[in-house]
């Protein structure tokens, strides 16, 4: 990949995944066929399936459904991976069970 990338470490997963710095986390995983790491469904910030908690690292988010991530949760690192762009290497925990 020519684009700048960061490393994504997922709690409970041995390997580390390389993700792009210029797009949403979930899209990076989808493009690498890493569809089972974080549950992937609507990709639009609406369904809440891809809820994760960022344990370390910096990131930015775009608008996501308040029904799934409250302001208080946002402040403590909960996000939807489909609306989160990494700004550094990240260590995350998956909140939802994979339903697929």
């Amino acid at each position, binding site marked *: 990949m020519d684009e700048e990338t960061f490393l994504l470490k997922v709690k409970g997963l041995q390997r580390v995944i390389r993700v792009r710095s210029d797009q949403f986390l979930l899209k990076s995983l989808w493009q690498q066929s890493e569809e089972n790491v974080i549950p992937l469904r*609507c990709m639009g910030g*609406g*369904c809440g399936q891809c809820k994760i908690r960022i344990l370390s690292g910096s990131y930015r988010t775009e608008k996501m*459904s*308040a*029904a799934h991530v409250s302001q208080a949760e946002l402040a403590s690192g909960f996000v939807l991976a489909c609306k989160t762009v990494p700004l550094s290497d990240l260590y995350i925990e998956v909140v939802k069970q994979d339903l*697929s």
Partner: protein
Amino acid sequence: MAIKGVLRAGFIQMRVLNLDEAVQYYRDVMGLDYVDKTADGRVMFKGYDEFDHHSLTLREAAEPGLDYMGFKVESAEILEEYAKQTAEFGLKIEAVPAQSDQPGFGKRYAVDLPTGHRIDLYSEVELAADHPELTNPNIWQHEPKGIGVTGFDHALLFGPNAKDTVRYFTDVLGLSIVEIAKAPDGENNLCVWLTGNNKAHDVAVLEFPEPGKIHHFAFKLESWNDIGRAADLMSINNIKIDAGPMRHGVTRGQTIYFFDPSGNRNEVYAGGYAHFPDMPVRVWDFDHVGKGIFYYSRTLNDAFLTVVT
């Protein structure tokens, strides 16, 4: 007019996270006609083959999902009769003045369903400015854009007390039950599909713990070829497809499920049999529901029945 009472599911107002993104998607990808913006900033759309002022309104909000869907009824007299019967049935009902928050619409009644959804009943809507031609009509008044859906078709509602909502639909609004999917116990219903007219369905209701949820709302296409072309355009436009292209066992419709930019599930739907009120109800046992929904793959995944907005 042989169709009496409820004519059709004719309208829906949905919440979206980003209105500009949603407008671009519903206008340019789905191919709905942009009608106008309301005074408070919501946006109205219609399908090119629909006559009423508009059939979809989008409202920007903190969470996506359904505000309410509307059923058009035969006449102002029937509307008042339904209002009376709705109150007698025990549901909360409130009049909404004509030409208020939905431009072009006459008087409406907002009804709170036992499943936690609001539906509106109405009888009068202004003819759309850009309606299908009435004299020596061409098939289009202008060439459809994008996927080119012809209009709003139906919605699937998820909520508790589904049995009571279905009873209201049949006993007060006179909708016909078209098909039923049974719950695992074989007695209760998992999902019920209903229609007020010749279409295979106008609305379906599924028992679900959270109130007021919507599984999908659907737009009509003419044919299986149009479904294939829609799938092409979804890949071209990076639309997230949920299931399909495929066929349903239920209603026999040909279909794709996919997500709008806010995660609301959409469907494009073609075919489906013509319903007549004298037809017997078709029933799916729980262990055949997979085939009823996904006629080709024949398996139902959990996420399909739990991911809603």
